[in-house]
């Protein structure tokens, strides 16, 4: 991953000096976020479908709305992270634990809504 002139883990982010990471790590991470957003979209659509399956009563509509909110939350985290990575290509910031927790919470919320309607 790093050339001989850049010892790994030197604590200074060796590739920052080069201006551009030859391994395109920030770009790959952005694409990973996009793939994950796509997976989340599919899961959210299936979740909303499950919620509305029993007819569009109040509970079903509420469940679908909650699924939509969870999807929006994930989208916001992914959008912010993709933007941060794109803006600081030379020295990308580390993902915050809050972003990770929110992304996971949105996924778990989808699973919880599903478990309620099963």
């Amino acid at each position, binding site marked *: 991953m790093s050339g001989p002139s850049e010892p*790994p*883990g030197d604590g200074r982010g060796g590739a920052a000096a080069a201006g551009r990471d030859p391994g395109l*790590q920030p770009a790959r991470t952005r694409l990973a976020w996009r793939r994950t957003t796509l997976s989340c979209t599919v899961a959210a659509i299936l979740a909303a479908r499950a919620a509305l399956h029993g007819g569009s009563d109040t509970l079903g509509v509420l469940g679908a709305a909650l699924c939509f909110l969870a999807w929006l939350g994930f989208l916001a985290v992914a959008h912010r992270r993709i933007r941060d990575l794109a803006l600081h290509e030379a020295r990308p910031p580390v993902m915050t634990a809050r972003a990770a927790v929110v992304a996971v919470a949105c996924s778990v919320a989808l699973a919880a809504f599903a*478990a309620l*309607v099963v």
Partner: protein
Amino acid sequence: MIEFVRSVRLWFAPERVRDDGDTPDYRFSLANERTFLAWLRTALALIGGGFAVDQFLPDLRWAWRAGLALALLAAGALCALRAVSHWVRCERAMRRGEDLPVSRFPALLSVLVALVAVAMVVVVLAGWAG
């Protein structure tokens, strides 16, 4: 278990991760982040599979359908929670210059997925026979 509680506390206090050791090369942090995202995608796929079992197998008896769907959903939720826990522990290990944490979770998840798959095969074959 105590280790898990300690790591849960770190999820909500990210600055405490930053207090530990040195900042690693950002490429390692990004690789750790992509691993986290890959686990999250696995979790979302399991959750989506749970929905699919529930909705697209209407001929299945309720007990089977709910059991399989709930097994997949529980695995998905567990996988997502474990993804963030593993991410925090890897980040901390890299800062401290320790070995990365080992885990038996991938093996357990594989066994669970295999069991669900076998259950599906049994259900489909029983459906044909019946």
